[in-house]
């Protein structure tokens, strides 16, 4: 039975992809140090989260059947420390949290929440929505999440995975505060290794010989690039299914093409929205300070950076959209050419298989047999005779 379980439940857009990738690629090293990160595929804990929360996700959920129970069983059987990590666990309801914690047995559970200031999270979440087929404008997104009713799908999801005091209430209310660890993201401009050092300290990874190469990240997009992607979504969301959208739009366009442009302005908040985010963050900081959690970093990190000049993605001009649009067309043509090559290779293989079959059938004996079968299949009596013959031959093996 695990002695300790470190349960990392969020938040999205806090460096979780990189962290999970390091854990996934270093499973063997971790095991040698009594640390378990049980995952047979990179997204194993994502699937477990979908299963725990009964969350259909564009068809991927069909690969998640029983994933939580399997994960929990592996964790229970481990003799040392086990790590579970996925950011969408943040959305779990109290009933689901109760089930999750109960299924971890008697292990000492530590809850970990990595958190970033709202000033950066709000634009990042809008980008994430756009990368998941949404074509909501930035202004409409901000109106939606600032609506206290949280009545929309986007609003309810945003706060379920970003409202830090609420997530900690749902996940941490049954744990002593010293077992709830809040990892804050360093402010912009901080040393790139600082976030890893905070994760490493929290999860007890200091000193382990881990391969920290960044193989998998969730890169952000610039303002015109996000605006272009949103415009594309307006056209394609209704005609491209999620299984096609993921490789063609999110991977090929967003991650592999549009995210390469590092010179574009980054998305931020307009002054009024910045002030609102700061004020809300300040209230959260006060509440979190009172709760006495273990903070790795500083609660002040949650206040967010000062306002910077705002580039409005809803007002991006055709001139600004043209360069990323040309990049997108180029990338899709290259991808189209690659797929054509794959199609051509498959056709060639099929043609060769047909030719081989035809050669095998080109004998006089085969042609005679085929003539007999065709004639017999044209009458009920013939079909009966053939069936009887086939059964007889089948029985004789």
């Amino acid at each position, binding site marked *: 039975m695990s002695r300790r379980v470190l349960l990392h439940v969020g938040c999205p857009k806090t460096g979780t992809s990189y962290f999970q990738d390091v854990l996934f690629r270093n499973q063997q090293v971790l095991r040698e140090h009594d640390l378990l990160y049980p995952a047979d595929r990179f997204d194993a804990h994502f699937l477990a989260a979908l299963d725990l929360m*009964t969350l259909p996700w564009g068809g991927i959920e069909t690969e998640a059947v029983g994933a939580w129970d399997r994960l929990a069983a592996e964790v229970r059987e481990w003799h040392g420390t086990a790590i579970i990590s996925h950011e969408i666990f943040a959305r779990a309801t109290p009933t689901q949290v109760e089930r999750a914690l109960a299924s971890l047995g008697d292990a000492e559970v530590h809850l970990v929440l990595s958190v970033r200031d709202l000033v950066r999270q709000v634009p990042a979440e809008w980008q994430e929505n756009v990368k998941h087929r949404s074509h909501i404008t930035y202004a409409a997104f901000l109106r939606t999440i600032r609506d206290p009713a949280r009545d929309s799908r986007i609003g309810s999801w945003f706060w379920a995975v970003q*409202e830090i005091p609420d997530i900690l209430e749902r996940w941490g209310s049954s744990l002593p505060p010293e077992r709830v660890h809040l990892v804050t993201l360093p402010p912009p401009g901080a040393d790139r290794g600082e976030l890893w050092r905070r994760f490493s300290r929290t999860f007890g990874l200091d000193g382990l010989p881990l391969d920290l190469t960044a193989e998998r990240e969730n890169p952000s997009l610039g303002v015109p690039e996000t605006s272009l992607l949103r415009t594309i979504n307006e056209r394609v969301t209704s005609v491209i299914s999620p299984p096609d959208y993921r490789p063609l739009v999110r991977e090929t366009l967003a991650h592999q093409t549009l995210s390469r442009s590092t010179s574009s302005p980054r998305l931020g908040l307009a002054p009024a929205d910045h002030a609102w985010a700061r004020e809300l963050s300040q209230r959260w900081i006060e509440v979190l300070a009172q709760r006495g959690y273990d903070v790795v970093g500083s609660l002040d990190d949650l206040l967010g950076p000062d306002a910077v000049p705002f580039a409005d993605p809803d007002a991006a001009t055709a001139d600004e959209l043209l360069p990323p649009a040309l990049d997108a067309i180029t990338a899709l043509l290259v991808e189209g050419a690659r797929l054509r090559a794959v199609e051509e290779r498959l056709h060639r293989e099929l043609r060769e298989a047909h030719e081989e079959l035809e050669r095998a059938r080109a004998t006089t004996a085969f042609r005679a047999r085929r003539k007999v079968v065709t004639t017999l299949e044209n009458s009920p*009596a013939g079909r009966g005779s053939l069936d009887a013959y086939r059964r007889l031959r089948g029985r004789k093996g």
Partner: protein
Amino acid sequence: MHGWVAHLRAGGTTPWLAWTDAATGPGTDATTAPAPSGRALPGAQQLELLRRINVARQSGAQPRGDHDRERTRLADRVLAAPAAGRGKADLPLVGAATGGFGAQPVDPATVSAHELLRVASTLLADDLVALGPDRVRRGVPRPWRHRFRLVGDPLVGAAAREHLLGRGRPEGGPLAFVVAVGGPIDELLAHTWTQRCFEHGSKPWAAWLRFWRERDQLPARVDLDDSIRRWGGRRPHVRVVTDLAQLPPHVGVRRLPEVRVPGADQAELARRIAAVVGIRVPVGERPALMRTLQKRMPDSGVAPVVVPAAEQDWVASSAARMTRALTRAGYPVVGDLADLAPHASDATGLSGHGGADDRQVLELAIRMIVDPGWRTGRERMVQR
């Protein structure tokens, strides 16, 4: 609030606001009564659904063998059931103590039918998984049977295929005739979406239609010409059947059972259930479970989905295009290719998009939760 939960678990039907009014009267303190089991409190969706289930139980349709233990077990299942999908998380109740964060508290009576259906579909999916698939009757294959491959209308095809399998006439075999079952194309679209709901699930009706209209394509099973070519059909071993009365001899029998077209509410509920079943059982097991549901789901009298008027132009042009393709291909036709032209169906009782209203779907879901007859009875015989 725990007091209201206990009230509902005991079969109570008092709405939350009426309960709190009574509880704040002199000498009562029901809103702060201790939790009956110490478990996490459910959301407004689960509580309101349970209340409506209790109302339905009281208002007639009492299930056979009803007793307290069964009622409490059902209540606990409802309270623990998650609301499936990426909608709202569990909603707190207005007037109940909260930590000041999280979703805004609501009066459960105002929770939409859509939200209640998210919980109800989880319960029904779990019931279906527990029930397991009905056994499919397979007759001993008749050696002299007519070889056929059915394509086209999936509702007709699924019903005929199963009937014929039971009669020892499985589909396929060497040199099989490709029998393409057609009909008015708007009906074909409606049947195809409906059958998808009872297989792997689908997008909502309106979104599904929009998907195909904006692509200006037809779904694989509606496009008869493409279906015939996909199955390697060549003249003269092809029949395009638009007159269903003449279909039986082309699959080697004298008659076929009448096809029951599920109502729009049944299809929509099945669609939602299929989404949850997909996360409960391996993907290959879902169609058999959903076919079981199709045969056992109680009728409600709601009409099947219809193509709304706004889509009729596209549907008509698609029908004309398909008719031209079939004519050019020169396949033998049983009936008349003119029958592929759409005929506007009656949309009485349906919503503007030609599908079911969420309230109709919820009504059916609650009926199925309250009355387990669809699970405990033998499968319904649909032959008429």
